[in-house]
């Protein structure tokens, strides 16, 4: 399987609920980043977590990283309709700076 696979593939929730997306990867990484993409638009950087970090917060976002399980999660608290988008994890391995993207989670937040 591939470096960077998110689950679920799609998630539908009501405004105010929390949304959790997971990302698994196969090889050792230098850092892991989460991006958001609104339909047909560009990629917006959300947060970067380094391999020696376990948790980071940014506003309503919380990211965890478990390098022993090669997995990360993105939690969006108190979701809003404007959070509707696709969310991608992307890993950076050692000795390279290319981003390897996952398959993405499509989040739909209903008002």
């Amino acid at each position, binding site marked *: 399987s591939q470096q960077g696979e998110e689950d679920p593939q799609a998630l539908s929730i009501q405004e105010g609920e929390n949304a959790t997306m997971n990302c698994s990867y196969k090889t050792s990484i230098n850092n892991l980043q989460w991006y958001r993409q609104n339909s047909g638009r560009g990629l917006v*950087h959300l947060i970067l977590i380094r391999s020696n970090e376990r948790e980071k917060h940014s506003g309503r976002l919380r990211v965890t990283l478990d390098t022993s399980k090669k997995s990360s999660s993105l939690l969006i608290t108190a979701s809003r309709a404007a959070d509707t988008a696709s969310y991608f994890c*992307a890993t950076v391995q050692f000795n390279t700076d290319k981003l390897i993207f996952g398959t993405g989670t499509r989040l739909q937040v209903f008002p």
Partner: protein
Amino acid sequence: EPEVTQTPSHQVTQMGQEVILRCVPISNHLYFYWYRQILGQKVEFLVSFYNNEISEKSEIFDDQFSVERPDGSNFTLKIRSTKLEDSAMYFCASSGGDGYTDTQYFGPGTRLTVL
């Protein structure tokens, strides 16, 4: 807040034609990238560029592709003879530090349609 910009937003071309996609990275950034996303698929790395030369390229980035930084602000991707399978969204990105530890900021993309 500084942004990466890309032009055009949409390019339609005939198979076999050459296209040039343009990007203006964030002004003090030193590392530049092109990625592409075929409709419904993952974002894929094409090439990274630093100090006026390619630092890494993927298998996709064959002899039909080239990149250039013709002046102090633009970063271009040229596809010499487009194929139908080159139809995709092409994203430019830039980074202020080496990408090992620094964030890559993406432009809004150019949608390339090859007919």
